[in-house]
């Protein structure tokens, strides 16, 4: 039931913009909770890397006195990866193309993370 609800959240997030290519909800220990990833993406490796990135972002923010971490953004020539908390125990990873409006990406991902948090609570 919860799995279906989370899956729907991810599908809706992906469907909200043509530039959002994939998304996944991951535990802070690096385990996949649910994913809507493109074929060929290794969800086990991605989940471990994403959880590690979030932890590293938190530690860096704290070390540099930047307060609580809000997001980790990775930008490459082909697009962006946005990593944000979904509650204390989960991480939402959103993978988007280069053309996406970043404001839209932040809003959509935050909304999805909030919805997932409510389900995981």
């Amino acid at each position, binding site marked *: 039931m919860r799995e279906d609800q989370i899956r729907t959240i991810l599908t809706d997030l992906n469907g909200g913009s043509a530039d959002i290519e994939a998304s996944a909800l991951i535990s802070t220990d690096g385990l996949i909770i649910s994913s809507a990833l493109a074929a060929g993406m290794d969800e086990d490796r991605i989940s471990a890397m994403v959880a*590690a990135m979030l932890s590293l972002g938190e530690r860096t923010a704290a070390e540099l006195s930047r307060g609580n971490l809000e997001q980790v953004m990775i930008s490459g020539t082909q697009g962006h990866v946005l990593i944000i908390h979904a509650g204390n125990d989960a991480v939402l990873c959103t993978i988007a193309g280069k053309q996406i409006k970043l404001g839209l990406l932040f809003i959509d991902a935050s909304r999805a993370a909030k919805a997932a948090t409510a389900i995981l609570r």
Partner: protein
Amino acid sequence: MQLQSNDPNIQTFWHVCGLDKDDESILWTVRGYILPLIPGLTDAFYETLATDPQTAPLIEGRVEQLKRTHVAWLESLFNGGYGADFIRRQQQIGEVHVRAKIPPTFVAASMSFLRGALPDVLAANIADKDDAKAAMGTLLRLFDLCQFLIDRSYDGTLSDGLMGNLGISPALLARLQTVGKKI
């Protein structure tokens, strides 16, 4: 030898490698033969280290001090008492090596050197062949136990540093280590 550890991994190692009360009495029996030979073994070991381009810089300028530590460690293996204090001392060796930035290769090579030197040393100095054979089995098991404990300490200290600096949990570290070769 009496195991005094609640750590299931140490318990398994102890059980499988077969250390028992006989080993402690064997060590006590042969210590009189072995103790006088330890400084020579240590000298030979450090002579070898001095000829290797990776290990020579690690010992340069402090060979005598390191030899004393090595001799003391080797002698301690024959002093009895293989319980919690013994286990803790071996683990501390690993911690000290990490702090001194001495790589695990150093310990592995050191143990291998000792294992390689043992048969000749024991055969030449223990007249009774059965005693020499028993002593060799016991010492090989003991060196393996020491290396296991020291290596674990290396791993633990390095993992703690990694987890502390990256802010990752033991579970996530385990995932990162095992999830795939590309990570």
